[in-house]
């Protein structure tokens, strides 16, 4: 039965939709980052789930997924740092926390 | 004959352009010397070519910049007519510009772009294909913009903006036209008109309208003339160059090429495109003259006069007949010489005495007799008084109108001459016959080398105006050359 074979990739499709909805409706960048990670997980499930044979899973998509996960975490780390720096910058618009090359501390 | 000669001729001004850009202001003398010597060198080169072309030898240089698209420079008789004019007037205008600006600041840029302008104008003349023509035509637009905005004040910037919008829009239309035509008949060389018989009339008409519309912007055909009076904000040497040689002539030149070398007179008359264009040109002539009468600013009056006078060329070209085309070609040269005289004089009056408006002219003839004499010759030429050059043009155009069964042309010419008289004669009257103001009385016209250099070019072109009229039947006169062109190619 198709649905049974496709259970995990279909779950992946649902995750993609859910994550996208979260991305569109959540207006905080960190929450959007989380939503994007959900989308990513969904894509990986599709990639891996459709590479599943009778008794084993194709190692090729597995490798792609691992690569994808690592790339995703690298971007998430950078994104989180960027979000933090934006928040810091907004809290201190006079440049105390930002690039204070002008050095005009009070 | 060396095949690189056309290339050399076109790109010769590039050398003084680069040198002018590079030399610091304190070496201005060197800049002047180099500019003048290159202008002389070019004139010599042109003279050499003139002799060979008269023998029927044309040289060309080709480079395939894209498959199926040749870049061709060719020295045919028509090209040489324009080149001779531009080389001669370049020398004149260079001398005049040096004297006009003296040792003002930021002239490196001016002379650099001035040279590029001449390069582009020469390229326009020598283009052997529509695409080549377009390349130089656009380069001309670009090179003149910095000249128009040279003063940098609000008025010049506005003029520059208007100039760009008009001319670039025109070029876009022209480009669309030539690409369209190319897609129908392939590359068009200006040696013989291509066979257009298989192409729908509507398409041909539309392409013609696109091309003439595009070229008409630079030629200041109504309703595309709006940029020209605005561009008067530029310094006098620029106005002289733009309105006598480079820009408007490039447009008029292009229209002649379109009619005679791209479409061919047979196709044009078969499509019935000549008469509407002639009517438009006639309307421009009258409109321009009429507007000129109403101007109080001398340069503006001259500008509208240009609008009117350039259309004589288009009128002659579109009438399609032996006399008409000769009139058109000869007027290309004559109008150049006369108009540059007028602009140089106007510039000199402004430069020396601050005269800008017609009302300031009272008694100027007594303060600056040589200048005003030159001005008067130019003005009489414009009106068409014999034996000036202008008379020759108008005579041939009138004959051409009769020959082409368009007697209304005579009316246009008469009306225009009347209006010409109406806007030039009051100037002459004021300058010669009214007493000068106290301010003017103190001016010594020819004191100092600078001042003599300022007056000399106008005097030379004024004499040329007389000579072109008086010696019109001599070999190498503009008229004989125009006849040569007409006989060698444009008359079947």
């Amino acid at each position, binding site marked *: 039965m198709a649905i049974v074979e496709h259970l995990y990739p279909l779950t992946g499709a649902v995750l993609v939709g859910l994550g996208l909805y979260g991305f569109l409706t959540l207006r905080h960048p960190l929450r959007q980052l989380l939503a*994007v990670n959900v989308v990513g997980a969904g894509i990986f499930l599709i990639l891996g789930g459709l590479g599943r044979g009778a008794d084993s899973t194709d190692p090729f998509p597995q490798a792609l997924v691992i690569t994808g996960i690592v790339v995703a975490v690298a971007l998430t780390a950078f994104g989180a740092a960027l979000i933090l720096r934006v928040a810091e910058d907004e809290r201190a618009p006079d440049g105390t926390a930002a690039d204070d090359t002008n050095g005009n501390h009070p | 004959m060396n095949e690189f000669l056309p290339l050399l001729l076109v790109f010769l001004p590039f050398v003084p352009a680069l040198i002018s850009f590079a030399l610091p202001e304190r070496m201005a003398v060197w800049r002047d010397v180099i500019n003048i010597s290159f202008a002389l060198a070019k004139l010599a080169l042109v003279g050499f070519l003139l002799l060979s072309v008269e023998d029927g030898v044309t040289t060309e240089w080709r480079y395939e910049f*894209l498959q199926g698209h040749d870049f061709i420079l060719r020295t045919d008789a028509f090209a040489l007519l324009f080149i001779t004019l531009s080389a001669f007037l370049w020398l004149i205008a260079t001398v005049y510009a040096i004297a006009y600006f003296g040792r003002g600041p930021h002239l490196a840029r001016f002379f650099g772009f001035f040279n590029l302008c001449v390069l582009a104008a020469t390229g326009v003349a020598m283009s052997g294909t529509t695409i080549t023509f377009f390349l130089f035509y656009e380069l001309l637009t670009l090179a003149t913009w910095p000249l128009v905005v040279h003063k940098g004040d609000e008025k010049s910037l506005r003029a520059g903006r208007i100039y760009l919008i008009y001319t670039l829009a025109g070029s876009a239309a022209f480009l669309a036209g030539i690409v369209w035509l190319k897609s129908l008949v392939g590359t068009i060389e200006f040696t013989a008109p291509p066979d257009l018989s298989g192409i729908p009339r509507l398409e041909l008409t539309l392409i013609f309208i696109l091309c003439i519309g595009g070229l008409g912007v630079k030629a200041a055909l109504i309703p595309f003339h709006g940029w020209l009076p605005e561009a008067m904000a530029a310094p006098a040497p620029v106005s002289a160059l733009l309105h006598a040689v480079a820009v408007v002539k490039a447009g008029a030149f292009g229209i002649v090429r379109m009619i005679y070398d791209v479409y061919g007179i047979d196709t044009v008359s078969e499509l019935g495109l000549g008469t509407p264009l002639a009517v438009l040109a006639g309307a421009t002539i009258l409109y321009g003259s009429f507007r000129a009468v109403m101007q109080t600013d001398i340069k503006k009056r001259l500008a509208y006069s240009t609008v009117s006078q350039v259309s004589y060329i288009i009128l002659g070209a579109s009438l399609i007949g032996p006399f008409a085309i000769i009139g058109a070609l000869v007027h290309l040269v004559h109008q150049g010489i006369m108009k540059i005289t007028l602009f140089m004089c106007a510039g000199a009056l402004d430069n020396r005495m601050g005269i800008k408006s017609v009302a300031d002219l009272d008694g100027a003839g007594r303060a600056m007799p040589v200048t005003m004499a030159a001005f008067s010759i130019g003005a009489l030429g414009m009106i068409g008084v014999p034996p000036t050059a202008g008379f020759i043009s108008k005579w041939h155009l009138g004959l051409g109108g009769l020959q082409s069964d368009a007697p209304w042309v005579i009316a246009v010419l008469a009306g225009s001459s009347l209006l010409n008289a109406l806007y030039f004669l009051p100037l002459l009257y004021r300058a010669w016959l009214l007493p000068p103001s106290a301010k003017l009385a103190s001016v010594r016209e020819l004191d100092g080398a600078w001042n003599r250099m300022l007056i000399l070019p106008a005097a030379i072109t004024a004499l040329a105006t007389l000579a072109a009229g008086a010696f019109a039947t001599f070999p190498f006169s503009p008229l004989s050359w125009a006849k040569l062109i007409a006989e060698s190619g444009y008359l079947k």
Partner: protein
Amino acid sequence: MSPLDLLVAAPLAFMIAALLSGPWGRWWLLAAIPVMAGLTVWLLLLPEGSGHVVGGWTLPLGVQLRADGVAQLMVAATAVCAAIVGLYALHEFAPGADRSETAHGFAFWPLFYLLWGGANAGFLTTDLFNLYIALEMVSLAAVAMAAMGSLRAALRYFVIALVGSLAYLLGVALLFSNYATVDLTLLAEMARPDLATKTALAVMTAGLLIKAAVFPLHGWLPPAHAAAPAPASALLSAIVVKVGFVILLRLWFEAFPAIIAPAGLELLGWLGALAVLYGSVQAIRQDTLKALVAYSTVAQIGYLLLAFPLVATAAGTGGAWAGMTIHATAHMLAKAAMFLAAGLMLKAVNGHHLKDLHGLARAMPLTVAAFGLAAVSLMGLPPSAGFLAKFLLLEAAVEQGAVFAAAVLLVGGLLAAVYLFKPLAWAFAGSDTPVVVAKAPLRTAAPLALALLAVSLGFAGQAMVDITAGSPWAGPPATEAEDVQ
């Protein structure tokens, strides 16, 4: 031995070197330029279409690299841009006063090489998953560089770029599941017009359109490109957006030309037209210089898409194809030149607005000249490479009777003239010579060289056309004819 992998490996090696060298890291550029120049020349000398699978494995397992025309042209243009922008950046991204590292001065260089290597990787590979990684290399470096100017704009860029990457990845996942390969050349042989393929193509295209900042998905570009430091802006506008564009080309014209619906091509063409018009109008409305230049990028990318339907329907001549790729190249050079020139001018007057440029043509004639020459190419005026591209596209449009596309090409050029002559008019305004804060005579050479190249490449038109014609899909009927022989 082959330059294909070295062109990626060398920048990465320099990235490591720069990381290890601390405050001296920037000087590796002087070694990188000759190395990359040599490799690029080598690449250009390769017979077209030559390639290999990395590590000596075979398809469909391995990653295939290939030197086709568009890759050769893009890699070469990238090398020129990166080298010159890098030289310009030597001053801007330098150690602090006491020879100590600064965050930007240190971090720029590894990111610069990452971007360079990533762009080369993207241009040279035929593997869709490998392209994903290349895309991320470039995006990561690009966002970090944008963050050096404005954190806020960078965050916006980052979030949107992330969505674009994931959309692309989703397509890759579907394609792999469907065909058991991610190699373009194999996909081209197997392509079937089924639901999975179409869905994959749609989401990948959407993702790439985001990355290439195509209207209406361009929103992230102007703030990010306008705020970044000049060398970063130059790299972003010149190189980064082109990577997404090249992948789009490969998908639409190499892997799946057979299943692309004409409606899809038309849609892209319309988007391109809207981008040209919208970007130009927005550029006209800007009163800060870098925002103007950034919106110009939005408009210029529109031309690339405008060409899609023209390329697809071109009957063998490949004129539209050549026009499109030459436009990408010309835009690379001209836009990099323009951003660098803008950076110099703004730094010199210590301002951001167009009116701050008042009279600058007298104080910095060479820089203004560089800006003007770059503008000539962007406006598509002769004799620049930009003109050549526009001319070829116009010719294709007229031949195919695509009146609307032809009109957009012409009107777009006019609008470009309107917005580009605005800053130039300010530079020519007045009659006094303004006092500038900082003149950088040596660095002026960078934008000038790029701009001169953009203009003079117009003379090498046929050479570029020949290079780009060496792509497997440069003209579908012609390629088939060659196969028959």
